[in-house]
């Protein structure tokens, strides 16, 4: 791993870029920050400098990062509603079909279509469909799941470092200098390069 322990910017070696091209991965340059406040300031500055952020990696959900990065509110809850509505219709429709069409039975003199008695199961299936659907959608759109390849930039990103990464695909020396200046001026504690 090409980490530097001091706070100087390490020139991404040509090997890294060559390897990246052959491997078809994205070469990135990144800075590690010690504090989420520094990270948010860095993202702000990157936006002001019109630098294209590749991604930001943090050990925990940093509040205030989404608006700065322009991340819109997730639409997963709309999905949750749709899955839930599907559960409602499935449960209520199925029970209605069974008790009025497929196999009508009189229980305690109640009507075949005894809607109030269907409510508990309808509610449970609504929640079940919504939760399963939403969670699966979440893993699917994030590309997460058992067997997903490990994307490892730095082991400390899940510990106490906040990472801001820029794509360095096909960039020249001038751009590299600009990134170096950027990381230095925004207070990154370490900078490095890597191919994802």
């Amino acid at each position: 791993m090409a980490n530097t322990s001091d706070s100087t910017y390490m020139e991404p070696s040509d090997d890294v870029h060559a390897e990246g091209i052959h491997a078809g991965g994205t070469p990135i340059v990144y800075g590690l920050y010690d504090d989420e406040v520094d990270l948010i300031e860095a993202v702000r500055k990157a936006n002001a400098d019109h630098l294209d952020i590749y991604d930001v990696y943090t050990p925990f959900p940093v509040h205030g990062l989404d608006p700065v990065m322009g991340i819109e509110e997730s639409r997963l809850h709309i999905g949750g509603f749709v899955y839930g509505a599907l559960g409602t219709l499935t449960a209520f429709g199925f029970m209605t079909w069974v008790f009025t069409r497929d196999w009508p039975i009189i229980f305690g003199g109640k009507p075949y279509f005894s809607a109030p008695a269907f409510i508990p199961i309808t509610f449970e299936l609504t929640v079940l469909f919504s939760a399963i659907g939403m969670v699966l959608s979440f893993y699917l759109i994030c590309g997460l799941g058992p067997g997903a390849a490990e994307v490892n930039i730095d082991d400390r990103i899940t510990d106490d470092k906040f990472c801001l990464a820029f794509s360095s695909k096909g960039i020249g020396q001038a751009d590299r200098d600009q990134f170096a200046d950027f990381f230095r001026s925004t207070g990154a504690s370490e900078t490095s390069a890597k191919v994802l």
Partner: protein
Amino acid sequence: MSAPISSLREPLVLGHKTYHDITEDICSPTESTPNAAWVAAFILSVTLLGLYAFCLVVTIWFGIGTWDLNRTVGWGWDITNFVWWVGIGHAGTLISAILLLFRQKWRTGVNRAAEAMTIFAVVCAGQFPLIHMGRQWLAFFIFPYPNTRGPLWVNFNSPLLWDVFAISTYLTVSLLFWYLGLVPDFATVRDRSKGLRRKIYNILCFGWTGAAKHWSRWESMALVLAGLSTPLVLSVHTIVSFDFATSVIPGWHTTIFPPYFVAGAIFSGFAMVLTLMLIARKVLNLEQYITIAHIESMNKVILLTGSIVGVAYLTELFVAWYSGYVYEQFAFFNRALGPYYWSYFGMMACNVISPQLFWKKSWRRNITLTFFMSIFINIGMWFERFVIIATTLARDYLPSSWSYYIPTWVEIGIFVGTIGLFFTLFLVFTRVAPVIAIAEIKSILKSSGDQYSDHPDYQDGPAKSDQVLQNQPS
């Protein structure tokens, strides 16, 4: 980063922790060899689990005649244990869902373990309806699947079937919610390990990266799941109470059951969380994350729900008297003064009188007292279910059917065995997963860490703060 915190709020993370300290403290129990206490507890739990397996084989081999149930008392320890375990399984989702919606920061210290406890308790609960069926190998008949008997469907109007859906939905949703929280923390464990262990944890963490967009979705997922789980957790014990409330047995047929069962469930669930957390914080050195403030908060919930339960007991008695209905009056007279009077008084003493001790602040913050209280409460809540089930059934409409029911060693073995199952699962959990939600603790550090606190007791730097910690009774 967050909204200002009142200086009266006690800090929730002590010891001037940095982000790295948090990772280190919470991950280290999964990385070291277990200590003697863990091994001893594990051996004991697995032994009880063995007893469970043996009693299960006896039950299936000889039939549930081995339980000494009779025509009058058709439900004995089996359903008592079922309701007891489901009740215990209510605290986890309450902590992780309802307290998330209420923005209670102290939930972050205990939510992971409480959710794990919920899942294991529901697993234990699920055993009882399955094994009391008699022909356990036909247990799948309870699900409405297309079959060659017509198809003959299950009775969707029956509260017992509602229970099937409620419990299985609750288990599934709790598992999904719990695992969603575990994914980033498994990634933390992965990034601290090498070789095969790293590969295993990469599978467990689903290849989590910590990308900003993923966190954003993760947070909105957690919120929506909390919104879904909140009515779910209230519905589960409501539906369990319908098993009784929709029947025509005096003493069961009461409209107060749903809220009374839910309050009782939360009451016993918090007691079990306290039992486990008081041991875990000591054994795993997590006293700085599960602080006296956490314990006090949980004791307040116990005081509230315990009082609700107490009011419900008294309301039942009042309504039985006020109804002028002789069978209802007899049912309650019989509960208090009939052949099972000892269980009624055990219930009253443990559930109504004992939680009232927690009106005193210094007692709420006393660890020894809290530990004993948590055990008492769970004994009391077990008695409550036994009182409702056994005393009511033992005195039928027909005095000629009256009987007395005593469990056999098989039933006792099954109950004690599920405690073994529960603790085996919990002990394994403490070895493989972080018992505190690492990412969530980090996200509250700057608002609730003692070094950021304005609380008068935590003003003078580490020395004073450590002193406060040491002065806590343990």
